[in-house]
């Protein structure tokens, strides 16, 4: 556990030293969402209807932006390989990286989302479910994204390839996240969708570190 904590604090310190990353993600998210009223017109009913979808898609794209750099910096300067030789299992290290990614991406997005939902006339009844869904869904984005980032380390056109690999796997998260948010906004039951999101989170917590670690190992061979 101490290994996990040490790695987590290391990655967080690095992230905050660079500073730009969290701001980048949040800025992209905010700007992309704000563009929509200009694009689809100011009709509040229309915006309320697409609000959940817009928030989730832009959150997804914002999370995708920073994925490429998840392992890249450490891979390029060799510290990733050095870290893999540590007694801490590679799977735990991947979890630490995912946690750092979520704390600098998913969590800020979840915090900003309600403010942006206001801009989109999202129904007030939907806020709790929206936040719950984002809290459950954004870690899944980090975990699945880690698999993609590990697989594409050092590949040609890694950015495009990463998006191609990761976006299809993101679709279930998107579907259930939007369903949960919209259901609550319409006054319907959002629990089933939230439970499915929780199941996705549990599943990816189990699967993703293993898959990403396997991908990292064969990157070192």
């Amino acid at each position, binding site marked *: 556990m101490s290994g996990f904590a040490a790695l987590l604090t290391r990655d967080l310190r690095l992230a905050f030293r660079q500073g730009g990353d969290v701001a980048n993600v949040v800025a992209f998210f905010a700007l992309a969402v704000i563009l929509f009223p200009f694009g689809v017109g100011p009709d509040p009913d229309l915006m309320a209807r697409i609000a959940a979808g817009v928030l989730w898609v832009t959150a997804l794209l914002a999370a995708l932006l920073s994925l490429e750099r998840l392992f890249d910096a450490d891979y390029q300067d060799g510290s990733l390989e050095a870290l893999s030789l540590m007694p801490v299992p590679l799977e735990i290290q991947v979890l630490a990286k995912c946690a750092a990614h979520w704390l600098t991406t998913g969590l800020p997005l979840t915090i900003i989302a309600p403010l942006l939902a206001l801009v989109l006339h999202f129904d007030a009844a939907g806020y709790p479910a929206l936040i719950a869904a984002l809290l459950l869904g954004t870690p899944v984005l980090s975990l699945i994204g880690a698999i993609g980032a590990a*697989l594409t380390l050092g*590949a040609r056109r890694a950015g495009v*390839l990463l998006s*191609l*690999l990761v976006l*299809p*796997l993101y*679709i*279930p998260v998107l579907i259930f996240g939007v369903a949960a948010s919209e259901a609550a906004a319409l006054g319907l039951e959002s629990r089933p969708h939230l439970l499915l999101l929780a199941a996705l989170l549990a599943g990816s917590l189990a699967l993703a570190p293993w898959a990403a670690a396997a991908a990292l190992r064969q990157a070192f061979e």
Partner: protein
Amino acid sequence: MQRFANPARFMRLSAMLLPWSAIAAAVLIAIGFYGALFIAPPDYQQGEAVKIMYVHVPSAWLASLVYAVMAVASAVALIWRHPLAHIAAESAAPIGACFTFVCLATGSLWGEPMWGTWWVWDARLTSVLVLFFLYIGFIALANAFDDRTRGSRAAAILAIVGVVNLPIIKFSVDWWNTLHQKASVFRMGGPTIATSMLWPLLVIAAGFLFLFAVLLMLRMRTALLRAKLRALRFGT
């Protein structure tokens, strides 16, 4: 030549099996489609539009089956490091992608007259679309590295990760309220489809299966010939 010991056995085996598999594929597909188009009756609800089923359903079955083969080959490649396994997976991928594309296209052409829409984001269609993107991603990933072995291994991991999609495809129509109809062949309690429609369906599916075998063996032989060519040109 130790490295070519296994491939040589495969080359001999596939040289024997290819002509017979090709004949089996041609005969089964011919009989199946003759039965589908000229013997099988129209559906009492869908009329002649049901004829699309005879291309759509076998392609769908093969789309998932080929992925399963690809995933198993990938697992064998990663666990036992069998040299042929990567070649098998990478040869299967484009075949699976083609079957999935045919499934999606014919399904869309069937959906418009029957459902009134070319596409709907229900669980079955979405998961098959994800399957298509998994195939494309696999091929792209395998070819994305200068070190080909690295690409093969990365793609193999992706193939195994994507296996979670297969049960979702199969059970999507049961777990969710989908526009796509429920299973009428592979279900508990046996098929609910009329026998006169079932037999051409199964014959065509068997034909497609032999077609897959032919295509897989052809592409694997090609890959092995290319590997031998590289070894000759650049030294083993």
